[in-house]
């Protein structure tokens, strides 16, 4: 009995690990009436895998039996692997047992599609319902929604879960056609639209009636696999931007394709995971969500791929040198955010501190600004560090040769791949 449970957990955790989302943030569910647990608004990472990803939730599949045959997925029906399925009670017991020991923030439950969409979705919802009602569990629950599930089930899912997600997996329609013949863009976007509309509708009702129930208070997210098909960064960013604006997504996750299956439609098994490309995409995503950049400012049809050597903000600044240098003691917050080497926190501190006195280089350095890059784009009360006007290429080279990239050990292997 115990051995079988261990085996199931190994199989069903192993097949869930390619979903990179592990966020437990964005919900403020309280622990009412001395039940178990609450949600931490900023999320907590309880440990990290040996590849450096955060482990915040118990992330498992209910089952890896699947009627679909998506080429990129280890659980596809034509793949010869061990199959297993949890009972509802087993998932509930694991979640509670782990939660009470402070191993996790909650549960991220996904599933292969067994029988049909509604049967699968109903089982996922039943786990969440049991946790919330029978065990008075107020920890974080993230449910993967199954495309094609009925609106009733989706609605019920949102009432118990903190976050819902629909993974689009492939950022273009042609990618889906090639690798996931059972799925279409429309079938994936329908549930996203439903979630987004329901959240908005209930928010409106809540303005009139405070007792309106919460529906997926931490919103929805999705994941796109990077490097399984031939889509460009420009296409990926466009898709992400459309999701953020069209469905108010909280997060789009980018997952560098890990070759797990031999298939002539996929990159070969010896292909390296495109970690650097994935990282640049996240940086671009951050620029859209926290730095006020539009998708068109990051890449356009003339530039289809992000520069792997430099971060996308630096790249943007090099294309827009005419906007600099900026006087750090006078410039708007929005423009300070756009200076390479200055993050959100530093920008806020600059705005706060300069009300007391005019800032100099030493102040800026102590605030944690990376002057290595910023010095070329700003002036302050002290004498300018740079007086020459550089050409973009020269500046790029100067910054690259003066800094130590955390990716320097990846250069040899990865630049040639995308070169």
């Amino acid at each position, binding site marked *: 009995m*115990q051995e079988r*449970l*261990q085996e199931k*957990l*190994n199989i069903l*955790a*192993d097949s869930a*690990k*390619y979903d990179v989302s592990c966020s437990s943030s964005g919900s403020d569910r*309280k*622990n009412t009436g*001395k*039940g*178990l*647990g*609450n949600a*931490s608004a900023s999320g*907590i*990472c*309880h*440990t*990290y*895998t*040996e*590849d*450096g*990803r*955060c*482990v915040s939730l*118990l*992330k498992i599949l209910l089952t890896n039996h699947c009627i679909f045959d998506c080429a990129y997925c280890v659980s596809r029906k034509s793949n010869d692997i061990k199959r297993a399925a949890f009972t509802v009670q087993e998932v509930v017991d*694991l979640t509670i*047992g*782990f939660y*009470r*020991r*402070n*191993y996790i923030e909650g549960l991220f439950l996904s599933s292969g599609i067994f029988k049909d969409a509604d049967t699968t979705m109903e089982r996922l919802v039943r786990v969440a319902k049991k946790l919330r009602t029978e065990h*008075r569990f107020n920890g974080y629950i993230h449910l993967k929604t199954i495309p094609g599930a009925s609106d009733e089930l989706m609605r019920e899912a949102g009432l118990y879960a903190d976050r819902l997600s629909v993974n689009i997996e492939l950022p273009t329609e042609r990618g889906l056609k090639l690798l996931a013949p059972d799925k279409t863009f429309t079938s994936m976007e329908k549930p996203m639209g439903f979630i987004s509309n329901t959240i908005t509708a209930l928010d409106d009702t809540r303005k009139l009636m405070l007792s309106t129930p919460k529906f997926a208070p931490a919103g929805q997210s999705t994941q796109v696999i990077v490097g399984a098909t031939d889509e460009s960064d420009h296409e990926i960013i466009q898709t992400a931007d459309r999701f953020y604006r069209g469905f108010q997504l909280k997060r789009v996750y980018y997952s*560098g394709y*890990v*070759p797990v299956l031999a298939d002539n439609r996929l990159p070969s098994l010896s292909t*390296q*995971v495109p*970690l650097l490309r994935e990282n640049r995409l996240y940086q671009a995503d951050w620029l859209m969500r926290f730095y006020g950049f539009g998708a068109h400012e990051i890449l356009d049809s003339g530039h289809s791929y992000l520069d792997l050597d430099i971060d996308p903000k630096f790249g943007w600044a090099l294309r827009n040198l005419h906007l600099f240098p900026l006087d750090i003691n006078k410039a708007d917050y929005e423009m300070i955010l756009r200076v390479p080497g200055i993050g959100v926190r530093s920008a806020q*501190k600059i705005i*706060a*501190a300069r*009300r*007391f*006195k005019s*800032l100099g280089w030493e*102040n800026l350095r*102590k*605030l944690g600004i990376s002057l290595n890059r910023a010095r070329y784009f700003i002036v302050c009360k002290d004498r300018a560090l740079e007086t020459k006007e550089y050409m973009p290429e020269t500046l790029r080279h100067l910054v690259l040769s003066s800094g130590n990239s955390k990716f320097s050990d990846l250069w040899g292997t990865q630049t040639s791949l995308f070169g």
Partner: protein
Amino acid sequence: MIWLLYDGSFEGMLTVVFESYEYRWKKLHIRKEGITVPLLFTETKTVVTDEEKAKRVWKKLLDLIGAKGIRSVWTAWLSEKETIEDTILGVIRYAIDSKQNVLSDFAHPDVLQLHQTAKSVGREKHRMEAFVRFQLTKDGIYFSVIDPDFNVLPLVLPHFRDRYADQRWFIFDSRRKYGIYYDLKEAQFVDFVPNSLISLNGVSPDAFGEGEDLFQKLWSDYFKSTNIPGRKNTKLHVQHVPKRYWKYLVEKK
């Protein structure tokens, strides 16, 4: 130059601040009793904690830097850094002289030092909320031992009290020899270990409650299963989970 010593309580430190104004000491250092001060040519004085004086400083601070500011001062003070009282005195003097909320003057050396220290303490608080691993004992208590770099128990209490409201739990700070015990009604600071079967490294397997073994095994297995070898990045892993915390983590044993 005078060295003022206090009993190590927050009220004690505020009393010293009060008296530094009362007696017009201009050049002074504040230290906790027991910390070595230079012996030669130094004048030292032990200040007796006075709640009334502490309260008056607190009120003044509330006016000058607000509740959020006091929280920053308290958080930084919990770092137990040898010179933190001098930093705090510097900030309070600056606040009184300039009569505005100086805590956003990040270019002022004491204010910046205060924020940076509070940030380190806050980071350690967050780590404890993440890395505490409860072990269920035979008598039904979820027990954990920690050894934080700073005195963060007072900061983590509300988090654990709100979250684990329906189970008895105990978190013990092995360096400072005190803990928090929650008995299903309230969470209180205590300075004893509840059971002889509990050592400073945690619960001995003889004292495990039902299922404890299994859940530790399942969690270790789960941790292994989530790893993707093709993405191995040890540097990043250690950056997020520094080695000094491994001794408490079931999955890193």
